Each structure stands twice: as C-alpha cells, then as structure tokens.
C-alpha cells in the first residue's frame, strides 16, 4: 500500500470524524429523530475511494473511536460504544463502504451522479441496515421485525445523505476529477 493511499484513507477517516462534530438535526415531521451527518462520510469514503481503501478508511476511523477518541456523533467514543445496541451499524459501516465502492466501480459507464446515488443507497443503507438490524435484535433481545421498526426511523435521514453524496461526488468529479479514486 502506497503512502499516498494511506493519506487518502486517513483523509476520509478524518472526514467521518469531522462530520460527527456537525450537530445532529432533529426534523419535526420525522418525529424529532436526531439525524447526524456521520454516515454521509461513510458513503463518501466508499464512493470516492473505491472498495478497499473506502473500507480501510472506515476501519481506521473505528479504530480511533475504540482507542478512546470521542468522534462518533454526539461526542461518543471509547470502547463503550462497541457494547451498545447500535454496534451492528458500526460493523456494517466498513462493509457498506466496501459495497458502495464496488458498485461505484462496476457502474463506471454511468453518469457519476446516478452511479454515486445507487452506490450510496446500496452500500450506505441496504448493507449497513443488514448488519445493524440483527445487531439491535441481538444486543437488545428484540425480534427482528421489532428491531427493524426501531431502526427504520433513521432511514429518511439516510436518504437525504444519499442525495448529498451523489451531489458531492458529481461536484468533485467536475472540479477535481483525479480525486474520484474509485474511477481512476
């Protein structure tokens, strides 16, 4: 792995961290569920870096959290979060970035906007929830449908982030095409 790749991986890990400092937005018509910007970073890592480096960026971020940096949204961090009910989502993040990067690469012929939206939705929502919901079910002793119901409240917020990911990917593809590493 070249040093340049390491810098890129660290860059997206830092982006996920910086997005965690953006205060959560509660949207009234969604029942006041707090929406954080953090998974936007996970989607972007996969879409921009491609599968392997994207997943490594998320892993590096989670490594820092485990070491004790309070980088998760709401200033959470440390080993405690890996004991919490949402640990399945954290496990799903690197896999989600991996899948998002893979989708981005295999839809190379498509327009960046469309391709990034599909990649972010499949990797950042489908895959992440496929890990997150069983995680909630195990950690909280709930049945899968109940766990899904509890997790579903976050999906509208995630759809907003899919749109943002697609817009950012397209902007960067125009302004700094070399930075869309998943396609170069």
């Amino acid at each position, binding site marked *: *792995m070249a*040093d*340049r790749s*390491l*810098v*890129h*991986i*660290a*860059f997206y*890990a*830092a*982006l996920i*961290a*910086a997005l965690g*400092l953006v205060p959560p937005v509660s949207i009234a018509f969604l029942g006041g569920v*707090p929406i954080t910007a953090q998974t936007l970073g996970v989607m972007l890592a996969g879409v921009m870096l491609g599968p392997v480096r994207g997943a490594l960026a998320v892993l*590096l*971020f989670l*490594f*820092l959290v485990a*070491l*004790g*940096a*309070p*980088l998760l949204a*709401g*200033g*959470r*961090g*440390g*080993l*405690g*979060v*890996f*004991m*919490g*009910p*949402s640990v399945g989502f954290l496990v799903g993040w690197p896999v989600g970035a991996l899948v998002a990067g893979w989708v981005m690469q295999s839809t190379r012929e498509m327009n960046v906007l469309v391709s990034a939206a599909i990649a972010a939705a499949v990797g950042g929502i489908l895959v992440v929830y496929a890990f997150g919901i069983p995680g909630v079910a195990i*950690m*909280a*002793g*709930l*049945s899968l449908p*109940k*766990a899904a*119901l*509890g997790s579903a409240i976050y999906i509208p917020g995630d759809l907003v982030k899919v749109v*943002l990911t697609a*817009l*950012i990917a397209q*902007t*960067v593809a125009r*302004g*700094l095409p070399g*930075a869309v590493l998943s396609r170069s």
Partner: protein
Amino acid sequence: MISLYLQGDSWAHRLRAGWKLLAVALASLVLFQVVSVWAYLASLAAVILCYASLGREGLAQLKLLRSLSFVLVLLLALHWLSGTLNDGVVIVLRLVVMILAANFVSITTRLDDMLEAVQPLFRPLGVLGVSPRKPALGVALVLRFAPHMLLVYGLLREAWQARTGSRNSWRLLAPFAIQSLRMSDNVAEALKARGGSEGLSR
C-alpha cells in the same frame, strides 16, 4: 487533544492498558451469559463504585448515560410493544453495565498507551509486506486532518456570511471538498518527499 481520557493518577490509571482491555473483554463475555437482574444490579453498583473511586470528576462521567437515553427509551418502548417489558428492563440494565465498564477503560487510559497496547496485533501486517507502523501513522494523520477540515470549513463559512448574510449553505460543499482534497494531496507529496512512512524515525 480530542480524547475521552480523564487526567488523574488513580489505581485505574496506573493499571496497564492491556490488562484493562482483557478485563473488560472477559467481563462482557460473562455478562452476556448471566441473565439475573440481581447480578446486573450488583455489577452496576460495582461499576458505579469504580467511577466514584475517581472522585467527583469520575462520577460526572456518568453523564454518558444522558446521550444514550434516547436509544435506551426506544428499546424499552419496543419491548413494551412486544409485551416483554421485564426482559427489556434486564437487557437495558445489561447494556448500561457493559457500556459503563468499557467506557471506564477509555477514560482511564491515554490514547497513546492504548495504541501501544494494541500495536502487537498489527505485527502480522509485516508478513503481508505492509509496515506494522502504518496504522499508527494513519491515526496521527486523522488527528491532524480533522481539526484542519473544521478550519477550512470555518473560513469558507465566514466568507459566505460576509458576502450573503446567511450563515450556512449547501453551496459551501463544493469548495470545501475541493480545497480539503487539495490539502490531502499536498500532505501526500510532503510525506513522500520525507521518505514516506518507511523514512519516519521511531
């Protein structure tokens, strides 16, 4: 620096990071097998006693529970809906104990010590031809990049506010993405010019 670490010189601070990690791993394995409310209440008391042994600042760390309250209440509500409220109470109790215990390790161990304790885990990377020092270098880069990104964004936002009067806009995303990506390219060049991660002196 950004860390959960709480300054101090208590018994918990003096314990080796590796032992603390091992202890919390074993404790969570045991707690997952036990299902008695009394055992959880006893371990909750023990964990709170640990926090109390750090003094007033230690007890203040229990504020962690406040940020968890939303999720915990949601879990209780779901259990109540499925008619398993008793199970729900036990499970929430278990989660609280495990989270507090793991967090106790994080607040009494410096980030550097933690990094050193897990460093041997990266030794197998050497077999794959990747330097085992790369994860540590990655950590250092992240810790430097994150505040820089906030700075770049802050400057863009101030300029935007001066021009338009409004505080924030999605229009800042494009210049932010491009400026901070350029910065990372410069860092990559600088790292290469200094001999890369292999050239770093230990």
